[in-house]
């Protein structure tokens, strides 16, 4: 690695650059995971969001405000979940000898979950796990309902679909609470890209190649987690 401002080819690390490196590290992973699993979020939240968007008064401005509110509340749900899973994860002591086994095993489980997701999308469980429509049913209204957008966003934000759990397990294993929160924030950005087409009402459905690319990304990420999990376990077996 080479610092751009430095003409020497040797690495030049400071505490700040180390912090930025590690931030970029899990942010990149979370973003990729979000982008890859976004369609499942769409499948899970779409049935709730789409009818609700359709009954909102027309106009790009109204729809943008509503979607922003929805996404903001969804982010709040994500961050709350990240804090909860990290607290649970940090209960495991760092010096515990089984930590490598847990880490390797978790990576393999993540790989399995992503494979299942990629093979069986949209998984029926995702549709069921979405917030029930009656809870947030708003009805045909001539005025935009802000509380409705926020409620919908928050409830879909804490729904336990497989990609969400995958991200949750990763966040639980991170070293600090801010890292877990940043991880979920980037995961949120990745998944939210898939919601933008709601503004023009389901462009995604007209371009199935996007969904196929997302599924391929999930398979490739699953391979990555699989190999890195297997390597962790192999090292544990070989070196103890």
């Amino acid at each position, binding site marked *: *690695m*080479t*610092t*751009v*401002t430095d*003409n020497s*080819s*040797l*690495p030049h690390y400071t505490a700040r*650059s180390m912090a*930025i*490196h590690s931030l*970029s*590290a*899990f*942010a*990149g*992973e979370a*973003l*990729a995971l979000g*982008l*890859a699993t976004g369609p499942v979020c769409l499948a899970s939240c779409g049935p709730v969001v789409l009818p609700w968007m359709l009954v909102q008064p027309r106009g790009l401005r109204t729809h943008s405000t509503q979607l922003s509110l929805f996404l903001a509340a969804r982010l709040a749900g994500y961050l709350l979940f990240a804090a909860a899973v990290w607290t649970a994860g940090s209960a495991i002591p760092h010096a515990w000898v089984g930590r490598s086994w847990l880490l390797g095993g978790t990576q393999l489980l993540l790989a399995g979950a992503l494979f299942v997701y990629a093979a069986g999308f949209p998984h029926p469980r995702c549709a069921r796990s979405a917030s029930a429509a009656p809870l947030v049913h708003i009805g045909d209204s001539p005025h935009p309902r802000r509380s409705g957008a926020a409620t919908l966003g928050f409830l879909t934000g804490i729904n336990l679909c497989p990609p969400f759990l995958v991200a949750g397990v990763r966040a639980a294993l991170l070293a600090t609470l801010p890292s877990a929160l940043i991880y979920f924030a980037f995961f949120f950005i990745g998944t939210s890209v898939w919601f933008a087409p709601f503004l023009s009402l389901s462009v995604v459905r007209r371009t199935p*190649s996007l969904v*196929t*690319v*997302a599924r*391929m*990304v999930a*398979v*490739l*990420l699953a391979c*990555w987690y699989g*190999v890195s999990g297997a*390597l962790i376990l*192999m090292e544990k077996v*070989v070196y103890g």
Partner: protein
Amino acid sequence: MASRSSAVLHPRVFRSVGRSLLLTLPMALWSLLMFTPSLRQSRRDVTIGSAIVIAFMTTLFYLMVRTGNTYRWRRCFFVALGFLFPIGFISALIAVRGTMSIPIERMVSGDTPFCFMVTPMLVIPAAFTRTIIFPGSILPTSSNPHSIAVMIGLWLAMTLVLGKAWCSYGCFFGGIEEGFAAVRKRAKIRRTVDKFAPRLRLIPWALLIVVVALSAALMEPIYCMWLCPFKTVTEYPAVHSVETAIQMGIFIVLFAGLVVVLPYLTKKRTQCAFFCPFGAFQSIFNKINPFEIRIDREKCVDCTLCQTTCPTMALSKESIREGKTLMNCMKCGACVDSCNKDAAVWHLKGTRVGLHPERARLLFLYGAWAMATMFGGSILANSLATMIRFLPKIHSMLLK
């Protein structure tokens, strides 16, 4: 229609020798200009290598102009580039280091020549952390002239001129599979490839997303470390652990499958079409490039011959019906040369489709061939010089 047809020079009608020579003259001068410094050198191997390349590139351009055929002559250059690059590269590595593998300490000291494949992986880390995640030196050094700054500058210039045509006039890897794809007369596997092509074509995009995100995540060029098939014929990290052994295994399997066996069986450039994330990245630049291939719907009879010929599956029935190629067209010219209705044509964006296709082809070729001579030509000259240097040694080794 009649007047339009008469204005079109039939691509397979030979130009006169005089006119062809005249049109080749600028390219001959460009080649001379490019290689003048090498010709002036006192080293005989460099002078001979450069002289051969000037003659080779100028002759191929002349043949493209005279015959109206692009694909066949371009392929001669491209396959030569694909096979001579590793020969020159490996010989130099063995002469300098005695091995193709790079020890970790040399990698850390920035002794790795920069490869353009890594470009998309550099963007996010460079933007957010001002770090280039490649173990090469930024500025040229005496031991490594192929520094990051030089190679990115070259890539940028070529991309602006060529767009995705980089993949058929610039890339020093694509020629290897194009060579293997040219061996058989007919494809052994065709239907399966056709059937799965719409999905397979999306793999490079998925790989691009994954390698860019994971490279940013882990601050290392993931593609180079785990997935590049061409490590097999260039430079790889020394195998010293289970992890590096797995990496080496992946390189070899990918190279054998995607670059040798599948191109041989399918007559397609399978690695370029269905794997290379850098190719997907280059496709984005096709949008800003003024040249493209179009299908003149008034002449097309939907025989799909062009689709069958295309080495990267950049045509589908739907795209032909729309009169366009897909985004991954690398402007190799195979479809144009194969269409016997003159419906597949070179096109300058903003003009009417089929109006002056030969003019558009020549305009494109001047830019593309100039770049090919500058970049690929110097690689060829370098490889030839290395081979000439090593010939006596190999000869004496054989005699012993």
